[in-house]
């Protein structure tokens, strides 16, 4: 069995961000592994332990995303690959999906692709479902638990958390899943793992390596600029008497 986990780095959730006059983003701290991906990487390692699976970890991005690959290698992923090409600059979800789907195809024998729930810096999960679609595989999004996985029979059963409740779904492998934070306790790298990861080679696959050309990944949507949030008007009004607060809220017509 071969599991692929897709990861990226993202600004720290606690980092201060600001927008300059040109609409560019200024982020204080360095990038961290997407917190959602930590669950996906951990789940891949749990599958490795349970099913003797081979685990490949992939990212799409510049060298600043290698930190996420190293994190995966240090926890126990077997190989790491970075997908990048100048033509991917300004990628949209569909360009991401096509490149990642081509890389999964190049790996050849992948049974399951794991993603964290979303990428915070683009605040989207569309690339996950589009990767599944470009592979022609079933996506199972918002997975809170892998209940059963039978590589020999090629079946998987998961619990998905969606608006209308919790669904138990069975499907066929190969499949693409996105995981929620309920799914496991993230593993953290050991000292030995970190040293091993530091020495590992991380090949870069270009579009040519993936059999794609620049036209195939031309973005269909783009960012024009970042904007600051509108300021909230006024300071807080401190109230001692619950009855007065109730009157104010009734006046606001929010109840």
């Amino acid at each position: 069995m071969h599991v692929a986990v897709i990861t990226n780095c993202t600004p720290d959730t606690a980092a201060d961000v600001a927008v300059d006059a040109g609409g560019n983003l200024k982020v204080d701290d360095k990038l961290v592994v997407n917190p959602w991906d930590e669950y996906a990487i951990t789940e891949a390692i749990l599958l490795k332990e349970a099913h003797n699976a081979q685990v490949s970890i992939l990212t799409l991005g510049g060298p600043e995303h290698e930190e996420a690959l190293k994190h995966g290698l240090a926890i126990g992923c077997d190989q790491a690959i970075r997908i990048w090409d100048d033509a991917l600059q300004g990628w949209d979800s569909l360009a991401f999906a096509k490149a990642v789907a081509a890389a999964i195809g190049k790996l050849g024998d992948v049974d399951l692709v794991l993603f964290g729930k979303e990428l915070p810096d683009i605040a989207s999960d569309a690339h996950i479902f589009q990767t599944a679609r470009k592979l022609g595989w079933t996506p199972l999004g918002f997975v809170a638990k892998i209940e059963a996985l039978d590589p020999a029979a090629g079946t998987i059963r998961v619990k998905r958390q969606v608006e209308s409740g919790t669904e138990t779904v069975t499907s066929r492998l190969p499949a693409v899943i996105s995981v929620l934070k309920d799914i496991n306790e993230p593993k953290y790298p050991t000292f030995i793992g970190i040293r091993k990861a530091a020495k590992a080679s991380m090949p870069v696959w270009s579009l040519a390596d993936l059999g794609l050309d620049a036209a195939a990944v031309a973005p269909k949507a783009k960012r024009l600029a970042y904007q600051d949030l509108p300021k909230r008007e006024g300071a807080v009004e401190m109230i001692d008497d619950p009855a007065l607060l109730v009157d104010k809220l009734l006046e606001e017509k929010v109840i």
Partner: protein
Amino acid sequence: MSVFVWIEVHDGQPIPASFEALGLARQLGDRVTGLVFGQGIDDAVKAAFAHGADAVIKADDASLARYRFEPYVALLAGLVQEHNPAIVLAAATTSGRELLAGAAADVEGGLLTDVTELSLDGDKLKAVRPVLGGKVLSVETVTAGGPQFATLRSRAFPQPEPDASRSGDVIDAAPALAEDAIAAKVESIESAGGQISLTDATIIVAGGRGVGGPEGFAPIKELAETLGGAVGASRAAVDAGWIPYEHQVGQTGKVVSPDLYIAAGISGAIQHQAGMRTAKVIVAINKDADAPIFKLARYGMAGDLFDILPRLNEEFRKKLNK
């Protein structure tokens, strides 16, 4: 300009966010088609007309009884290819996000997700969407020709007033996939069971570390019940195991936008603010008068939530005659 709106149906009824999408569609285009997929969906078709659809494409089949990615994406993508609408909209729910991403992949369309503002710049969609946990806004536009797709954040757009006298053409569509061609089978569903969904809620009462334990949520639940609201929680309360994850509001939980958000015993970490800062009116109740939540709040009460919440509840019951 022709606009398709996927009408998301739960238990035979469209969700409110689908009506919001219909309202926006009427502003963007001159012909609005509601797409209603499911089984036993006549009421939902009527509701789509009442909320602004000029026509409805209806696919009523057992294989579509509950949303699943493969049959819904194949059906939507096929309809988009056949009718070539300029714009396709849906609510940015878990299902809506999956469905439009999948269909946009099939027809190679530009996609803008989870938008809070949407307009046309010439014939291209232009959106504002919160990113990085809601700390900044990103202004984005579709650049490619062909059908353009956007998912809309719940409660970011006004819901149109229904007009039951409206009607129009109903076009029947057949499922694109036979049941045996669909890999995913839903075995069972634990329904959210009458609980008000956080993302649809107009009122949320939320608790954090300050509630101290699972039983500490009792006064929060009581107040939520009096107000007909939903119960939210901070990450600290969820991580402590006091309340299930589905109640979590914030960067790694749900993003909500109610009319009223009452935060009790929540300090207001930036990750929590990311999930609730667009609430219309925020009330903060906290022992620590310097807690960051007070910077966001319109009204604050410094004190013990176990003292304040029951008194608030009693006052509301009196004044709302409950």
